[in-house]
C-alpha cells in the first residue's frame, strides 16, 4: 500500500512538472501569437486561426503521430523521455493559451496603444506598460486553462513518450495502466487527484475572469 502511495505521488509530481514545463515553454509564443492574431488584419487571418485551433479538435493521437514523425527526424532523440512528454503536452495546450490571451487582447481599446505611441513611446514599451497590464488577467486565465489541459494530456503523450514509470507516466497514463490491470480502486484514487487539480485550475480561471469583468 505504501509502495502504491509512493508511486502515486511520483505520478502526481511528474504530471505537475511536465505540465509546468510545457506551460513555461508555450508562454512566450502563446502571448506573441495571441497578440499578433488580435492585431493582424491582413489576408489569411482565418486560415491562421483555423490552423492554430486544430489541436483542439484533432484526435490527440493524431497530433502524437505527427510529433513522432517530426521528433524522430531530429538528431538527438528525446523520444520516450519526459522531454518529449513536455513537447506533446505543449502542443496540445497551446491553442487554449492563445484563445484565452487573445480574447483579452481583443478587449483592449486599440486607441490606448495608439495614444501611447504618440506620447513618444516605442512599441515594446507600449506593450509592457499598456497592453500586457491590461490583458494580464485574460493571459493568466488562458494559462490556467492550458495548464489544466496539460495535466490531463494522454493521447499525444503516449505516442511520443510511452508510459515509463517515473519518466513519462503521468496521472492520466497511470489511470489507464490501473484500468488495464483491473485495479479500479487505485484508478479511482488517481481520478480523484486529477479532478482536484483540474477543479483548482478552472475555478481560479473563472474567479480571475469574473473579477476582470467587474474591474472594468
Amino acid at each position, binding site marked *: 500500500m505504501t509502495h502504491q502511495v509512493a508511486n502515486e505521488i511520483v505520478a502526481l509530481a511528474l504530471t505537475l512538472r511536465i505540465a509546468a514545463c510545457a506551460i513555461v515553454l508555450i508562454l512566450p509564443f502563446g502571448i506573441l501569437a495571441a497578440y499578433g492574431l488580435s492585431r493582424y488584419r491582413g489576408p489569411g487571418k482565418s486560415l491562421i486561426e483555423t490552423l492554430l485551433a486544430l489541436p483542439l479538435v484533432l484526435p490527440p493521437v493524431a497530433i502524437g503521430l505527427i510529433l513522432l514523425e517530426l521528433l524522430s527526424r531530429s538528431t538527438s532523440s528525446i523520444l520516450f523521455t519526459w522531454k518529449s512528454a513536455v513537447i506533446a503536452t505543449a502542443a496540445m495546450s497551446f491553442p487554449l493559451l492563445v484563445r484565452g490571451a487573445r480574447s483579452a487582447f481583443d478587449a483592449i481599446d486599440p486607441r490606448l496603444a495608439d495614444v*501611447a505611441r*504618440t*506620447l513618444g513611446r516605442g512599441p515594446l514599451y507600449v506593450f509592457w506598460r499598456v497592453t500586457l497590464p491590461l490583458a494580464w488577467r485574460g493571459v493568466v486565465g488562458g494559462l490556467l486553462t492550458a495548464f489544466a489541459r496539460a495535466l490531463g494530456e494522454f493521447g499525444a503523450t503516449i505516442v511520443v513518450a510511452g508510459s515509463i514509470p517515473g519518466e513519462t507516466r503521468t496521472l492520466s497514463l497511470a489511470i489507464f495502466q490501473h484500468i488495464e490491470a483491473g485495479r479500479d480502486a487505485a484508478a479511482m484514487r488517481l481520478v480523484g487527484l486529477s479532478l482536484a487539480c483540474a477543479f483548482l485550475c478552472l475555478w481560479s480561471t473563472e474567479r480571475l475572469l469574473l473579477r476582470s469583468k467587474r474591474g472594468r
Partner: protein
Amino acid sequence: MIEIDLDLALEPFTLQVNVSFASQATVLFGPSGAGKTSLLETIAGLRPTVRGRISLQGTVLFDSSRRVFLPPEQRRIGYVPQEAALFPHLSVLENLQFGVSNGSSPLRVLPELIDLLDLGSLLERAPATLSGGECMRVALGRALATSPRLLLLDEPLRGLDVERKQRIVPYLLRLREAGRCPFLYVTHNHREAILLGHEVVLLTSGKIAAQGKPADLLSTKQYSFDL
C-alpha cells in the same frame, strides 16, 4: 506650419487632401464620416498611407516618394482621441507622466500644466472615477506634457452635456492663448469652430471644400451640419 498632401483610401471613398495651415488654432470642420478622424490618425502616423507627403515645421514626417515614414513616437505630435482614451490601469498622475522620460526637460512642464488645467486635486484618482470633462482635461495634459509640436484634438467636447462643455471651453481657450503649441481641432459643431478656430478647414466627402477665417466661412448657412 504643417503641409499635407495625401491620398487616403477609406471606405467608401478616397480622401484627397492638399492643404497647409499655420494658425495657432486650426479647426478641421466637416460632417460625420468625412474622414476627419482618419486624417488626424494619418498625421499622427497611426495609419498606413499609400501616397502623399506630410511635413511639420520643415520636418518631413511622411513622404511616399522618398520612402520616409516617421513612426508616431518620433513625430512629437500630441493626440487626444475621442472620449480621451486615458490608460485605465494608471492613476491620473501616471497618465500625465506616461510620455515624460526622466531627466528630459518636459518634467519641468508638468506642474505648469497641472496648474493650467486644474488637475491638482485629481492626481491620485483612477480614470474610471473621473467625469467626462475631467477625463478630457487629463488627456489634454497628458498630450501636452511631452511638449509636442502640434496637438491633434478629435472632437474633445463630444458626448459632454452643455454644462460640461462650458467648463472645458475656457481651458481650450487658455491653451490657445498660452501659445504653447498649435492645435488642429476636429469638430462638426458650428459654435465650437467659430469659438475656437483662428482658421477653418472644411472637409466634405473626401475633399477640402474651403479654407479661411471661421467667421467668413461658417456664417453662410451652407456649411452648417449640426444646427
